[in-house]
């Protein structure tokens, strides 16, 4: 069943896509710069989703309501997808501009590290069968893991590298032309709505998975009819 949030996500994403294609190209990079309308919102969603993984984890530890854990897991999963997208789009942009697919820049390396931290988080979640134990352990790891976010964000300030410093989220005025900024903000908004739709769906799937896993089997299971042959005669 399609929810209103799904329709809203599809609509704003389409609008942002059209806007991103209609705004004038960058004065220096030309059309290549348009990849930023996917790269920057993906990076923003990585921060948002991992930050919210922490918030949902803390909410679970305080209330012990399992729905917070489903939201935390969903948020981390969506965050890993968008972090991967940010890395891939950055690499595609980097090849023509920097001349390499990958460079040992602090922002790149730390983003890749953050990706693996949350892959570990997802591996941890999959390792536990008991939903309560999984929720507790994952919430604790989510609290420790979130320290990566400020490190990734400020890496361009602390280390000199190829990656440009913050353009929009910087002290003072944003260093970007008006129409380009509007397209970028529209893309950020659209991706955020898509994130909300995906997390909502994934959390629901998580809830159904838990219910299916804990529900007793109500029918015959394959192999029920097979029994071991009786051992007659005994050993020697």
């Amino acid at each position, binding site marked *: 069943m399609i929810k209103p949030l799904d329709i809203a996500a599809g609509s704003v994403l389409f609008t942002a896509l059209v806007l991103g294609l209609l705004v004038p190209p960058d004065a220096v990079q030309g059309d290549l710069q348009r990849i930023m309308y996917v790269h920057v919102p993906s990076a923003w969603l990585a921060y948002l989703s991992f930050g919210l993984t922490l918030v949902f984890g803390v909410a679970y*530890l305080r209330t012990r309501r399992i729905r917070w854990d489903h939201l935390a897991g969903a948020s981390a999963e969506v965050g890993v997808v968008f972090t991967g997208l940010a890395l891939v789009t950055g690499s595609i942009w980097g090849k023509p501009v920097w001349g390499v697919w990958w460079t040992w820049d602090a922002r790149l390396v730390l983003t890749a590290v953050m990706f*693996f931290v949350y892959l570990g988080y997802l591996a*941890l979640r999959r*390792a536990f069968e008991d939903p309560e134990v999984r929720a507790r352990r994952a919430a604790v790891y989510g609290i*420790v*893991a979130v*320290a990566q976010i400020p490190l990734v964000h400020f890496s361009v300030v602390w280390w000199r590298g190829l990656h440009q410093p913050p353009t929009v989220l910087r002290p003072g005025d944003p260093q970007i032309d008006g129409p380009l900024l509007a397209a970028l903000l529209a893309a950020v908004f659209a991706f955020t709505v898509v994130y909300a739709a995906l997390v909502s769906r994934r959390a629901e799937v998580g809830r159904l998975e838990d219910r299916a896993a804990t529900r007793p089997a109500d029918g015959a299971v394959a192999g029920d009819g097979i029994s071991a042959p009786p051992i007659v005669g005994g050993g020697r």
Partner: protein
Amino acid sequence: MIRHVRVLLAAHMRDERRAGEVGLVIIPFGVVALLVIPMAVGIDTPLLDRIGPGLFWTVLVLFGVVVTQRQSATVGDARRDVLTLLGVDPAARFAAAALAATILLVVFAAAIALVTVVLYDPAIAGAAWLALLVPLACAGIAMVGTIAVAVAGGLGSRSSLAPLLAVPIAVPILLAAAQATEGLRAGAGILRWILLLAVVDVVLALAGVLTARPLEES
């Protein structure tokens, strides 16, 4: 609580003394790693001098996680139940485990530092700063590893999962320590890297103490 930490720390050290896992297994393994790397990158003395300190920190982080995962650090269900019945705070258990791991890591770091100097002959500067840097880095690695081991506790895949959980989180420690060492060699200020290490340690200590109780629940 301090008395509990002291008693538990003594128990951890006694367990390790009996098992000898760090001294007889992990230190030799770290030395082997330092021996093997030059064969992979080429026996180029100036290059080895340049990369020596970085390799030291890399080996410390990677093998440091193994130190935190040692068998003598594993608290079985029976011991945990007894400690719970005795009213020992889970935060005291975390503090004792992290402290024991820190001490063992400093020993491990001293051993591999000696081997790094002998094998790679790096130019050493700011020995007093290094004496501060190494325990700070060891404390951070110890706390990350202790938390990871607690989080993955009771799992069959613990030995493979805990390093995946711990090593990426320990990257800021590796970065700060390596940058500080480079700063010392270049004669630059390293105060901000020391500060970053101290902040990471404080954040990890708070996280470990505050989350110790939920991790102990069964």
